């Protein structure tokens, strides 16, 4: 029982995934469409509810039911009753494949890098203190992760930073707000990046690496106090004008608003100079689930719609650039490599579980 729970925790850890009591594929006699049901993270909810997405899937013969969850652990697991699971990382997808003993390679239709959200004046304060910079040519903001890590380890306070005194809301320790790494993918990926930096820019691969990085992971976690369970929540806090000055989010969350033309006030998107991408990876368990996975990767219309929701379609690098073209408030980096952003490799799900436990003091 304990072991099963551990396996489940590992499954959910990276995934932003949970699952539900779901029915296997059904043929709908009325229109001949196949109904597939699966589980997705909250960041993909709007995409699957979009009428254009629904229409395109219907045209391809699929009706998709999704269960959105903030990846809470549930008392009962019925992994074998779903058509697909669509976690926000490849590691979680791997774990799901193992659990379901699925042989096919998982499909990664699109991805989205982790970014940091701040209000304009806060970004300026960061820049004045060597924690961030803006490329004058592209106007893309970069967040200096090593400098940030040093600031956290030194217990740096906002009020000690140059230029912060003009902003009374900037007080207390400098830290990023993330989701709970034990239940949400973005929080776990944050630990992955920090462990990589702390481990002299080497991916942590063994207990010795965990031991070498655990103190700082514990610090950045306890500082935050209570953490929210899904990426949707800190993002909403930021948008409603409260919450911590620095919030970790998916690029897709901000890009979706920009593409739609929704006003975002003075929101600035900062790209960590060492970042990690959330690989939205779909595991199809049934024929219908596999069909959906392939459509999301290969169908041109769906790829265009994915970019409209701020995702970066894997097989179509231009789609995202096209979608955010001309958007300057905030400004996005259409090409991550050109913006000189380094990708930290993500540890194995086993190591990431150890890092998360260390961060949570378990």
């Amino acid at each position: 029982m304990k072991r099963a729970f551990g396996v489940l925790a590992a499954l959910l850890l990276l995934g932003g995934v949970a699952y539900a009591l779901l029915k296997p594929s059904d043929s709908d006699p009325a229109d001949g469409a196949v109904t597939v049901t699966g589980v997705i993270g909250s960041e993909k909810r709007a995409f699957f509810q979009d009428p254009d997405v629904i229409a395109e899937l219907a045209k391809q013969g699929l009706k998709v039911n999704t269960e959105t969850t903030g990846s809470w652990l549930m008392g009962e697991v019925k992994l074998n009753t779903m058509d697909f699971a669509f976690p926000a990382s490849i590691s979680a997808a791997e774990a799901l494949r193992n659990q379901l003993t699925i042989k096919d390679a998982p499909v990664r239709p699109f991805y989205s890098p982790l970014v940091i959200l701040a209000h304009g004046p806060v970004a300026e304060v960061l820049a004045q203190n060597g924690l961030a910079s803006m490329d004058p040519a592209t106007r893309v903001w970069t967040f200096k992760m090593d400098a940030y890590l040093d600031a956290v380890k030194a217990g740096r306070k906002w009020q000690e930073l140059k230029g912060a005194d003009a902003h009374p809301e900037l007080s207390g320790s400098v830290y990023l707000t993330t989701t709970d790494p034990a239940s949400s993918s973005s929080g776990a990926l944050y630990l992955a990046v920090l462990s990589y930096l702390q481990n002299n820019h080497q991916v942590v691969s063994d207990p010795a690496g965990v031991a070498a990085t655990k103190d700082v992971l514990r610090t950045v976690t306890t500082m935050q106090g209570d953490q929210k369970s899904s990426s949707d929540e800190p993002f909403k806090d930021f948008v409603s004008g409260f919450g911590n000055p620095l919030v970790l989010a998916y690029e897709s969350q901000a890009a979706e608003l920009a593409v739609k033309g929704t006003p975002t006030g003075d929101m600035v998107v900062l790209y960590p100079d060492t970042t990690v991408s959330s690989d939205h990876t779909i595991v199809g368990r049934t024929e219908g689930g596999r069909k959906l996975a392939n459509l999301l990767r290969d169908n041109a219309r769906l790829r265009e719609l994915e970019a409209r929701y701020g995702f970066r379609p894997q097989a179509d690098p231009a789609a995202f650039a096209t979608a955010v073209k001309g958007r300057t408030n905030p400004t996005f980096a259409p090409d991550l490599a050109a913006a000189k952003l380094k990708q930290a490799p993500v540890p194995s799900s086993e190591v990431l579980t150890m890092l998360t436990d260390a961060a949570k003091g378990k």
Partner: protein
Amino acid sequence: MKHRGWKGSGQLLAAGLTLLLVTACTSGGDGPPSPRPSDPPAPTAKAGVLRILAGSELQDMAPVLEEARKATGVTVQFSWTGSLDGADTVSSGRADGKYDAVWFPSNHYLRLDDGGRSKLLSETPVMASPVAVGVRASVLGELGWGDGSKVTWAQLGDAASAGKLSYGMADPSRSNSGFSALVAVASAFSGAGSALTEADVRKATPSLKQFFTGQKLTSGSSGWLAQAYGRAEPGRVGALVNYESVLLSLNKSLAPEQQLTVVRPLDGVVSADYPLSLLGSAAQGERDSFKRLTSYLLKEDVQRRISELTLRRPVTPGAAAAPSLPSDRRRELPFPGSKVVADGLLASYQNELRRPSRTVYVLDTSGSMAGDRLAALKAALGRLTGADDTRSVRRFRDREEVTLISFASKVKYAKTHAVPATGTQPGPQAELAAINADVQALSADGGTAVYSSLEEAYRVIERQQAAAADDRFTSIVLMTDGESNEGATDGDFRKFHQELSSAQKAVPVFPILFGDAAKSQLQGIADQTGGKLFDGTGSLDGAFEEIRGYQ
């Protein structure tokens, strides 16, 4: 110990609800907390109906939910409870199968418990409001605080300890607004740069004690707190701690001189984000209903409507906030990340930081109480002396002065216990045991002289106040199972009460309806004294526990 039935708590709930409906236009309120460990009865599952256990302040969402029903076909059926009681209900599994979703101002406390967080399938914030301090305009002027936009917790603390700021705040062990304020003020006073630790709380203790000398009103629910503010003598209470949205809404019904200016302290606030949360135990049909409802509530135009109606802030990007909501930013103070810290802070508040209480129980031990009724009374009161109380929601507190008055045809005896502080010798446990021994020794015989006994309670308090010359939260609990049939009449009591000093008049009576008590008599006493009637006919345990929030 007698287990509480659904029927009883339902009646208690109904009583609370009635009160709330009366005050709904004047306040949001944390609502009538339900007794634990039982909870309000929930309807059985029905297609298109979402059963939600919620903080009763969400009552102000009724018009929006009616529009949601028309648009989505989803009907919301609420059962009300307090935020922290609700967290217990979820953690213990008592919400499973009974409710489909929960909706409290915040899930902070719920998430601290592994058992609680694992019950939630998803959480969707719907709107937001910071906990703020509403300060009377005249007080703001006296303190030279201008329009209130630059005030810090440190200034509020200094004003309170100098006796220049008195305020009401809901009980943090029950109410999210009270708990949030406690976290904010402890963070500010400790200078903690990040989430509170036990060391931070210790460091802030002297300043917190000073700050809480200014707390003149406490309450188990924000609704009653607002009422008590409204009826308090001018000058006695100069401020109220509550959600920004509640304070702004309350102003709509307050007299001009009672109007409150909303102060969001410059050094940080704790905000509520009202997450509508799906329970893992919900069936597929209810999950679909949940999805439809949340999608509707997050639509831009619906968010604008919510903000205008409730004066909470929207969470959907692009949705405009009500024009009266200020847009300058505040630091958001993190909520403690561990249950040990959170519960420790609550225990410190109750036993060390807040002003101590003077609590008088006027207990009917007439002949009709013999048997089951007396046993129920002994169990209910005995529970308040027990140690099993992690959230400090029940137990007689360190430094509390508890007087038991047993009466029938006349007062049989009055006995006072002072619970010592922890760390002193012999410490609180021995005195708590002594209270319990007195309770267990109660015996029933004789008639019922309610009013005369109540008058005696006021005289006891007057003597105690004169002897101790202290400043305590003072209140009377009256438990009776019958009609007053001897001694003073209600008219006599009214006259007696009118002639009391202003200090005495400020002492509320919280009557508990039990057995064959005359509800109209008890309601009259509550109204006359500024108290509140509690229904103990189904669950005496629940009534005695709920009243602790007001003592």
